[in-house]
């Protein structure tokens, strides 16, 4: 820790910066060959909660030749002190400047963190553009959900790891070590790295554009590198590395508990959902493996809360066995189990009685749309009866508050669908009064509505986002429709959603906008107090970019999309088929009911539900 104490005393939550937590990994820096700075481009509280970071920190530090350390974005008060006093960005474990590391890796979880990435590179004193970094500069790499279309930020990265990182990150480190030994030559290294499956080296793929701004072609720089980069997956999750301990934060973090990852992928296939597509195929862990991992983590961390994590936990085929197994020891050890999200159609009384967070606090369901027609369009195969039945179960169990998640601005949405949101909330209230053994409290329904953002690798990837004015109209329309004071209506800031849409479907031309935003001191865009829509519009204007080209344009089905050079297993043909079914309001069966031929099964997988993978 090299930060003067007077600075630590002057900033908010100084424990964000000190390091020294229980569970952190300390090594002798002279005894390792590769030093890896794992950067999370947001605050400590958010970064410390991320499961991917926890897993990869463990994977890298399991190697004797590598020391992986943590780095977070300093909050603005600390950044001011650092700039004033010339303190470079440092790592938590050793306190060494990030610029002295071999590899600097960023976890890219959401588009609005991009300005933080640039800011952190600058605070570290590392040249921002990959092209400006020579053989002696750290290698800057990225991974995480945003790398499925990392084009807007591609100019700043030497390479991206596409897909699940556990194996490829090790291969990358091994290759780096080899090259370091024989004298690191960046161009040679990148050429070789581009041939590792799952590694995308953007500088080795030149992009040319048509006059209308769409992509004309992508030209690989060498003949021997793949034209399409295939995402990585772990086929057997029972054998996947999982942390045996965690770094215990000194201050409360967003997910301040044990996270037990139950399975990857999702059987559902909601047409707006990127996670549901890019994590395919579905692969489960066995209850015995999970129970063992849970015990190890409970012993090693001292956490008294554990959450079962996956995209839709109630769809886990062994949920009963798993909760049975866990409850044999968690209750006695005063460890409470929680669930992140529930589907209304598989929410049962039994599940509610088992899970403590379901016992206390409010319940959340996500109908996503207000009418059955629109729910069919988005392939959210939940009926109103399911939602009302789930709410009744909750009311019988002593609940009086329900939270409902919706999306506004979905393709084909009309005012009728918005009326449906208000009506559904009313019906939930009615259901409460129809439940004989309800608690004696005033019921409450909170509607929380996000704005639809078209995301790459979804059936809706071609769809335009509604224009800002339309989104705002939709919000005020629904606000007027809700007159019952037992119903509360919250909605996301449409301006934030629009900027997110620009970068979600962006191409490399946007790197100029990021540079300009950075030059103007913008960062922490995902934080309300630091998000400035008008400044973003000025930035786009200054670099001659029309944000509507990315956010509000319907992309052509024949068009080369910025992310077409990534292969996630799920085919473009499947996504197109799903898009057309959406327009016909035709739902698609979930993966367990029948295979819809998305193409992800060719990646393989144990305990998957794809018929082709069953032995």
């Amino acid at each position: 820790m090299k930060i003067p104490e007077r600075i630590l005393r002057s900033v908010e939550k100084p424990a964000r910066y000190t390091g020294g937590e229980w569970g952190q990994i300390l090594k002798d820096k002279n005894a390792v060959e590769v030093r890896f700075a794992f950067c999370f481009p947001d605050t400590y509280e958010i970064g410390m909660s991320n499961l991917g970071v926890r897993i990869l920190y463990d994977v890298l530090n399991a190697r004797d030749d590598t020391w992986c350390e943590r780095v977070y974005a300093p909050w603005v008060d600390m950044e001011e002190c650092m700039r004033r006093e010339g303190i470079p960005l440092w790592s938590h474990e050793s306190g060494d400047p990030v610029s002295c590391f071999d590899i600097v890796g960023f976890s890219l979880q959401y588009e609005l963190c991009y300005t933080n990435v640039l800011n952190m590179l600058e605070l570290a004193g590392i040249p921002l553009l990959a092209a400006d970094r020579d053989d002696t500069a750290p290698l800057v790499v990225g991974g995480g959900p945003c790398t499925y279309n990392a084009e807007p930020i591609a100019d700043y990265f030497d390479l991206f790891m596409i897909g699940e990182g556990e194996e490829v990150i090790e291969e990358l480190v091994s290759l780096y070590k080899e090259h370091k030994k024989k004298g690191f030559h960046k161009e040679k290294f990148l050429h070789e790295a581009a041939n590792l499956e799952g590694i995308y080296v953007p500088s080795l793929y030149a992009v040319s554009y048509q006059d209308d701004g769409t992509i004309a072609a992508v030209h690989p720089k060498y003949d021997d590198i793949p034209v399409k980069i295939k995402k990585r997956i772990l086929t057997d999750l029972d054998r996947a590395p999982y942390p045996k301990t965690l770094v215990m934060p000194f201050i409360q973090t967003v997910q301040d508990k044990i996270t037990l990852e139950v399975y990857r992928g999702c059987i559902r296939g909601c047409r707006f959902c990127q996670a549901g597509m890019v994590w395919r195929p579905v692969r489960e862990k066995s209850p015995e493996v999970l129970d063992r991992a849970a015990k190890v983590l409970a012993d090693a961390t001292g956490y008294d809360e554990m959450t079962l994590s996956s995209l839709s936990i109630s769809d886990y085929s062994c949920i009963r066995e798993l909760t049975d197994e866990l409850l044999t020891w968690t209750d006695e050890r005063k460890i409470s189990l929680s669930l992140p999200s529930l589907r209304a159609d598989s929410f049962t009384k039994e599940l509610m009685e088992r899970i403590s967070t379901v016992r206390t606090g409010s319940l959340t369901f996500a109908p996503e749309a207000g009418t059955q027609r629109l729910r069919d369009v988005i392939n959210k195969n939940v009926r109103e009866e399911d939602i009302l039945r789930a709410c009744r179960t909750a009311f019988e169990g002593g609940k009086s508050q329900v939270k409902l998640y919706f999306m506004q601005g979905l393709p084909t949405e009309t005012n009728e669908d918005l009326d449906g949101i208000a009506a559904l909330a009313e019906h939930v209230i009615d259901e409460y009064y129809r439940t004989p053994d309800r608690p004696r409290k005033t019921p409450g329904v909170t509607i929380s509505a996000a704005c639809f953002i078209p995301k790459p690798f979804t059936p809706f990837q071609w769809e335009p986002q509604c224009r800002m004015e339309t989104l705002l109209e939709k919000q005020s329309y629904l606000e007027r429709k809700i007159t019952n004071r037992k119903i509360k209506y919250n909605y996301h800031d449409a301006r934030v959603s629009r900027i997110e849409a620009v970068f979600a479907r962006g191409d490399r031309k946007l790197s100029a906008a990021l540079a300009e935003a950075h030059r103007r001191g913008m960062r922490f865009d995902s934080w309300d107090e630091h998000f400035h829509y008008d400044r973003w519009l000025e930035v786009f204007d200054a670099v001659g970019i029309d944000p509507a080209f990315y956010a509000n344009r319907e992309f052509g089905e024949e068009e080369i999309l910025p992310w077409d050079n990534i292969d996630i297993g799920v085919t473009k043909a499947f996504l197109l088929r799903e898009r057309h079914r959406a327009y016909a309001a035709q739902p698609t069966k979930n993966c367990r009911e029948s295979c819809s031929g998305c193409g992800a099964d060719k990646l393989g997988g144990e305990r998957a539900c794809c018929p082709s993978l069953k032995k």
Partner: protein
Amino acid sequence: MLSEPKKVRVKFSKTGSLKFISHLDLNRTVKSAFIRSKLPIWYTQGFNPHPKTVFSLPLSVGTASLCEFMDFKMTKEMSGDAICERLNAAFPAGLHALAAYAPQTKFSEIGWADYEIRIEAVPMDAAEERVREALSGPIPVEKTTKAGTRTVDIAPYGKLLAVKSASGEIVLSVRLSCEEKTFVNPKYILEFLTQKLGFPSERDDYTVCRTEVYFLDGETPFL
């Protein structure tokens, strides 16, 4: 298993990174360390069972201490050494159990505490005398409470024990009141010195460490 849970007091130090965590966060850190230690900690018997831990004195964020105390209950008898050993194996660096025993006193009997204040300042002439002189008269400071800001003379509630100036550092030892109504935060001494002598200036780094805690008599170390 004891029929009645037994009260245990642990004397511990809080240094390094740990001095930057708040009282609330210390509580969380200790709670998880209890679980890791596998000590037979007694939990409250309610809907939401938790170990009932009571800490002695509040400690400002940024202040280290060699003499903190916490009380909790255990369901089995264990030797003090064994308790310390188990806790130290589970504590993060910076938290260290020094002694464990059955308490005979109450935290409300604490009256005074010693602090060591180290100021990294440019060497100056006769620093020791100037500090001694500055702290020999009234020490008016601005105290902010719920009722508003008022000026209080803290001289009756604190005394300078020693001051040394060596190799770019000025080290003060002070004894300050810890009683609820007359509690003196060591920061007041620093603020007063800045105002009177111009140091520590904004750019001077300093550390504060609580080194001993006393009963109301101001002489007998608290146990």
